[in-house]
């Protein structure tokens, strides 16, 4: 049997799944002061009367890292950059003043300026005097040649032997130096607390006689063994929305293009599943004010929900973006969409008399009937959400492309279904679907879609390989791994074979070896390097991916 537990903002939900059947559900309120305790409470409630030996797999999704960062509980980190020529480091918005070292690597990985080791020693002493225990060292193009990052890290660690030092190329090898710096910074800031949490979880589950493997859900909807996730704590940020999206994927027909609408009190979260694959944000997640390289589903948060403020201006109804409190029918301060839905009989929460009173004030300002006023409020909410959904599709179409065929093809997609999750969804989703010309789906288990998503999500895996045959070397973006290649004429087929071999090794290290064979090439390019009029070598890039998906057993 499979277990999925999602520690969400309001409740912690858990499900027990046997094959294709949902056997049991439990939930407890989330206590942000003690996430481990609510996780275990939900787990214990679920496991009452269940034989722990029958559990084959446990997957957790938690707001731990999100909360740590939002509440400023992450540890302070000293930021050391080797930016080389280009942007003034002050223009990078990293939220803190970096220490800048002279030195430079170029796009091919050539050293174009030597590292200033004296500056590195001075940086170490300064950080040590500040009493810092964490240091992040990131060099521009450090992923193409990490010698300067390594050297700077080594010098600093001699001065601060107890400090934990994170090097940019080890965290991610994607192009985009400021994002790499931010991701490295967050990794350094959260690693210790995250490790402690995973150890506590592992211990607690062992005490409960669970011998099944335990996984954590990442922001890209993939699972990773708990003990392997400690190296990349920030990958687990936003695992809550990822869990919901995976849940919808599990609860709706395959290969569909769907909009997921999660309507809450204050905000509505929108996500897209395009031909069966959840849409990832194109460059990486934004965490508070930092842009990162973290692979995460694209979730758009719109400031409109059941408790949004309803305003009347010039015979028009305006809803949101503010929330002043609960709906009037629930004892709140003023009229809200929830009051309108109560009046129209679309929901039965709250007090009808209060709802009528709230809508009455709107109706008199508009000089229309009570029902008409309520309808106008609902229409305004639906129109706002529909326009945001259309905008999302448009933005996806407008994603920049760098090849002729991509511009010429210019794929267009339309929603086939609108899937509602979250408390406010059931009454509104049919109306949104109708406007979009799509089918409305509110899955039976929508309230625990998140826990189901966690339970049945499979691992994801990515590997970006770059080969430079002129220099006779390759590098892997994900782990800062480098190696040698021979011969100038490597072709794409050979590069893909090398990528597959490296992916299999990486999967093995991550404890998800069986997944590697499912990897597909999602991107590959080859460039002849021509100097003068002759070819001196080739640059090859290959990306292998196992995208987010559902365990095979669930569908059948």
């Amino acid at each position, binding site marked *: 049997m499979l277990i999925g537990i999602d520690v969400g903002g309001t409740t912690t939900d858990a499900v027990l799944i046997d094959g294709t059947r949902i056997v049991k559900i439990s939930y407890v309120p989330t206590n942000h002061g003690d996430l481990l305790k609510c996780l275990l409470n939900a787990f214990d409630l679920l496991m009452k009367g269940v034989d722990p030996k029958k559990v084959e797999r446990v997957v957790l999704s938690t707001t731990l890292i999100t909360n740590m960062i939002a509440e400023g509980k992450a540890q302070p980190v000293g930021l050391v950059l080797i930016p080389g020529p*280009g942007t003034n480091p002050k223009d990078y918005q990293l939220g803190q003043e970096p220490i800048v070292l002279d030195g430079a690597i170029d796009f091919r990985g050539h050293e174009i300026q030597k590292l200033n080791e004296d500056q590195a020693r001075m940086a170490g002493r300064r950080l040590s005097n500040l009493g810092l225990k964490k240091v992040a060292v990131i060099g521009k193009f450090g992923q193409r040649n990490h010698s300067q990052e390594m050297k700077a890290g080594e010098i600093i660690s001699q001065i601060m032997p107890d400090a934990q030092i994170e090097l940019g190329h080890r965290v991610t090898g994607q192009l985009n130096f400021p994002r790499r710096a931010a991701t490295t910074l967050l990794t350094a800031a959260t690693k210790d607390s995250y490790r402690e949490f995973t150890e506590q979880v592992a211990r607690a589950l062992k005490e409960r006689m669970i011998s099944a493997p335990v996984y954590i859900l990442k922001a890209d909807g993939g699972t990773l063994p708990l003990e392997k996730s400690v190296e990349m704590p920030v990958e687990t940020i936003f695992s809550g929305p990822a869990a919901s999206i995976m849940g919808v994927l599990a609860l709706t027909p395959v290969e569909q293009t769907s909009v997921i609408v999660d309507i809450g009190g204050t905000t509505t979260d929108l996500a897209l599943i395009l031909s069966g694959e959840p849409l990832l944000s194109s460059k990486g997640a934004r965490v508070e004010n930092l842009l990162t390289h973290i692979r995460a589903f694209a979730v758009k948060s719109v400031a409109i929900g059941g408790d949004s403020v309803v305003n009347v201006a010039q015979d028009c109804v305006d809803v949101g973006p503010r929330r002043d409190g609960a709906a009037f029918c629930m004892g709140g301060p003023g009229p809200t969409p929830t009051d309108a839905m109560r009046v129209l009989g679309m929901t039965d929460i709250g007090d009808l008399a209060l709802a009528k009173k709230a809508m009455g004030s709107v109706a008199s300002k508009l000089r229309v009937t009570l029902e008409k006023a309520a309808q106008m409020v609902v229409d305004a909410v639906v129109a706002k959400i529909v326009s945001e959904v259309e905008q999302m599709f448009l933005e996806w179409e407008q994603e920049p492309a760098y090849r002729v065929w991509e*511009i010429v093809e210019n794929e267009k997609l339309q929603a086939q279904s609108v899937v509602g999750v979250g408390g406010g969804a059931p009454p509104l989703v049919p109306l949104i679907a109708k406007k979009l010309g799509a089918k409305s789906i509110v899955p039976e288990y929508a309230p625990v879609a998140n826990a189901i998503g966690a339970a049945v999500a499979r691992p994801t895996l990515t590997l970006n390989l770059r080969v430079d045959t002129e220099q006779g070397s390759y590098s892997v973006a994900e782990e800062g791994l480098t190696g040698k290649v021979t011969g100038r004429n490597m072709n794409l087929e050979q590069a893909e074979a090398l990528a597959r071999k490296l992916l299999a090794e990486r999967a093995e290290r991550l404890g998800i070896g069986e997944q590697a064979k499912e990897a597909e090439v999602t991107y590959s390019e080859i460039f002849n390097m*021509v100097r003068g009029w002759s070819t001196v070598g080739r*640059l090859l890039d290959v990306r292998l991916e196992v995208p987010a998906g559902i365990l095979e057993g669930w569908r059948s």
Partner: protein
Amino acid sequence: MAGIKAESKGRAGKTGLIFFPAFDWAISPTHPEREERLLYTRDQIFEEGLMDLPQIEELKPRLATLKDIARTHFCVPDVESQITEAHLVAAGSTMTLADALENGEIKNGFSLARPPGHHSMMVVHGNRGFCNVNNMAIMVEYFRTKYGHKKIAIVDTDVHHGDGTQDIFWHDPDVLYISFHQDGRTLYPGSGFTNEMGGPQALGRTLNIPLPPGTTDEGIHYVLDNFILPVLKDFKPELVLNSAGQDNHFTDPLANMRFSAQGYASLNEKLAPDICVLEGGYAIETALPYVNTGIIQAMAGLDYSHVKEPDFAPGRFTQSDEMNRSIEDTVDELLDIWKNRDLLMESAQSELGDFYRRRKRIFYDTDMINESQEESVRLCKDCHGYMTIASTAQRGYGILNSAYCVSIPRGACKSCKEDAHEEFEEHKDDRKFNYVCLQDKDRDSYQIYDVRTRNRKSY
């Protein structure tokens, strides 16, 4: 540089950037205009995270339509056979930025797209100077047709003379074309001398500044400060556009100048173009990543002082006194031309009758085509006058194609319209030509007539 433009819009907002490296298009595998050209530029600007900055908005290009091309060029035998999809994207990039600028989405824009365009002339039989269609000119015609702009200035900062752009706007008094470039006696295409000043109705609206090989940042900024900027101030264009070639760089393999990334960035800061369009530049590792970063930063109002090529040091390049004097003399000569442009025009026109005629020979270096043209413009008192071009293209020893082209300007007078149509109709039976083309800019309608098959194509 407030005050250059007639309508200073004082735009606030983002810099629009279209990065279109055409990673799947090349003239030939080892040609300088190949897939690899913007690869390292991609690495540099992506690694810098420029697209993430709040000052910059990355836009996706749309495809130009065949009509957009026909508005600018007489393509022989037709538009379809002179372009690939890559050309439609590169031309479409400029128009995407034009729209974004007009809609107020961006304050300025940079089309960092290939293939380039400034060697493409009004009549197109093939590729010359790596160019098939003129992205800059296509954007200018679009700005005028769609948004009604009249006075536009193009400053061509590529190391090669932009003979294509010059040809297209030669007779147009409302388009100021200024090009500085390495002296044509030492570099392709061998033109762009001070005596090339525009047609008799547009004298002084084409201004060429040939510079000696080895000219540095100092020389180019001397020209900018003492000539280009003052002339722009006089002309008061509604838009300033930069044909932003990057081959004045000291490492460019195809030219011999000594311009630096800092020089390029500060040029764009001073010039403050509304839109930059990439032209040439083939030092793909040693110049382009740095020059492009600097231009983007300058346009977006960011600090570009940290941009530096690995082998550049301030003071590395100096100009001899002799070179300084020669540049100063050229600028003085051009300032005279600019000052006396109305007199020059009067005296030129007084010597001519109703028509101005010239013969041209054009060599297409990429496609090895020799074209000869006979061009005729009516010197009309009521409008810019209609134009005809009789063009014959030869490849090897045989005739490739011939066309009789008729162009009606925007705002043409009744008599020019009628005469132009008559010319078009008359030549439909003229067996001397394979094709007869009509470019009616006034009605924004374009036709190509095949004399043998009697088929007509409209755009």
